């Protein structure tokens, strides 16, 4: 009898610990993701006023001592009325999308090469991928300004070897933004791809080859589909920060490089219109989260339909 009691006690304790451990990440997300998100959401539903803080409170005291809740969708309507925002969103998506695709094409062979190299070399190559993180991101972007400017390193070099006879106009163009984005976020593409490709069973490739597949067919039929999770992870890790990027378009891009990060900054700090800025941020989050939720759902459905 007593044994049974102890068992019950143990299983209860086990459950408690399990719940506690699961609770930690949830608590973390609640504190640092959901709570700030709700605050921003609240601000996006307010009117701008000249005050401290510069928006109307959610709960307002009426003259008769009662309380009422004040919300407005004006800020969201405004986003859709002024075409600037729509154009900026599209331009951000385009910039992030093209950078991600280019980074995938550059990162995949690199990740594949690292995954297939012998163990000691592999560690050195991985270190080389990560080493840029040891230098401040801002410094590295500034360094690119030095490389890309009209009398910079790149133009100097190209003029010297004689490929061009006039310096290229690179800095303050979209090209510079693409270069900066791909350079900065390439490790985020390479690392998940590497983690995936490193696990790839060589015998599957040999089996395909044995069954009559040429090298590129082996890649198309086996390597590529099996590395899809790595591709999706790498693209997400790059696309999500890239779409809201502020520093790179500000430092390397021209006046006509429209990105949502800059609009956000301008609304907050130049216009001091916190509610509109918050609305811009909320729409951005929805823009990112909705496709991801859709993807996840579809993946789950596929998993379920299989079994």
């Amino acid at each position, binding site marked *: 009898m007593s044994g049974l009691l102890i068992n019950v006690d143990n299983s209860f304790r086990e459950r408690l610990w399990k719940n506690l451990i699961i609770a930690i990440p949830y608590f973390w997300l609640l504190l640092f993701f959901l709570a700030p998100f709700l605050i921003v959401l609240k601000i996006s539903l307010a009117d701008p006023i000249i005050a401290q803080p510069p928006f109307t409170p959610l709960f307002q005291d009426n003259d008769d001592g009662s309380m009422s809740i004040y919300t407005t969708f004006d800020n969201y309507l405004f986003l859709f009325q002024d075409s600037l925002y729509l154009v900026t969103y599209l331009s951000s998506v385009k910039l992030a999308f093209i950078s991600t695709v280019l980074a995938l094409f550059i990162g995949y062979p690199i990740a594949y090469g690292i995954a297939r190299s012998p163990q000691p070399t592999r560690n050195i190559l991985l270190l080389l991928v990560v080493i840029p993180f040891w230098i401040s991101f801002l410094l590295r972007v500034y360094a690119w300004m030095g490389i890309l400017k009209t009398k910079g390193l790149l133009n100097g070099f190209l003029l010297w070897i004689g490929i061009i006879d006039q310096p290229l106009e690179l800095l303050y163009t979209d090209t510079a933004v693409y270069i900066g984005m791909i350079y900065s976020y390439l490790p985020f593409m390479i690392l998940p791809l590497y983690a995936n490709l490193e696990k790839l*069973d060589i015998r599957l490739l040999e089996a395909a080859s*044995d069954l009559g*597949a040429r090298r590129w067919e082996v890649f198309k039929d086996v390597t590529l589909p099996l590395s899809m999770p790595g591709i999706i992870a790498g693209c997400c890790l790059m696309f999500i920060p890239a779409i809201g990027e502020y520093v790179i378009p500000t430092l390397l891009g021209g006046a006509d490089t429209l990105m949502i990060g800059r609009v956000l900054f301008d609304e907050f700090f130049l216009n001091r219109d916190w509610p509109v800025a918050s609305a811009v941020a909320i729409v951005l989050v929805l823009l990112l989260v909705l496709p991801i939720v859709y993807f996840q759902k579809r993946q789950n459905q596929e998993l379920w339909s299989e079994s």
Partner: protein
Amino acid sequence: MSENEKAFIQIREISKHFGDVIAVNKVDLDIKKGELFSILGASGSGKTTLLRMMAGLEIPTEGKIFIDGVDMTNVPPYKRPVNIMFQNYALFPHMTVFDNIAYGLKKDGIAKDVIDEKVNKMLALVKLSDYGKRRPNQLSGGQSQRVALARSLIKEPKVLLLDEPLAALDKKLRQSTQFELIDIQEELGVTFVIVTHDQEEAMTLSDRIAVMEEGEFVQIGTPNSIYEHPNSKFVADFIGNINMFDAKVTSSNEQELALACKALGGEIIIQNPGQTIHSTELSVALRPEKVIIDKQQPSDEDHYYVKGVVEDFGYFGNLSIFRVRTSSGDIVQVSKQNRVRIEDTITWEDEVYLSWEQESLIVLDN
């Protein structure tokens, strides 16, 4: 060898080096058409490397491989009339069972309705007709093995290479699958080359076995000849259980070989040894099942015998295994079929007589 019996696979002086390591060292081998041939060896003996060279997955450092008279040495795997069934099967996890089996045909650009027909026929052959839509992770070990077999047979290869085909299965399943493999091989007439470390598997499956050690063949022959006539201490020890004792040559001529062997009771005469003896120090080997154990002293003059005490014994139901310490102090292993249900059993500390027929003794050069 007559013209129509000419070897189907000819391996000539083939070697494979990995850096300083010599995995396969100047090996020659002939395999006949339709044969079920096993390469048996411990891990690291070079057997898998040899198989991979036949498949084209490894390029030989030197030497040549001919299949059906054509030089295949440098032909890439996708152009060889050979398919391989991998250890642990290497099924494509992202494809259904049907697509796994159909893959080889698709790569050959065969029409879809022909593929469907062939794959369905193959699924029936391996008794998996209802499993076409499953994924590899939804299959049991035995089912995966059959899918792998189907996938490697679908292109009707001239040679099927099997790398440890049964190693991943549990014992019961292994036995039934062994006979299935033989049936399928007989039905299709494909030449099978099997690589295995499991001597039992090699014995039951094969027409012929090549025993491999450190990149070279030690002995090639039928399972029976390898078991009953091992040509070296290594083979005798590697295949089955065996008792091995030191012996000295006292006299030898064409008809008779006289040995002094303390463990087996002194002088032993071997008639027609059938092999030339080079050294004076030899080993005499005796399989445990060829020793007769009895509490009564044998009367038969033809039998040699020694006296001993049972030191240890194990009962396996169908047979019992005894370890007997002889009067010379050596240990002899004996296995005895339990043919009679109720008998005067032999147990620990019993005094027993061990006897054997003279022909059972195997003489091995040191």
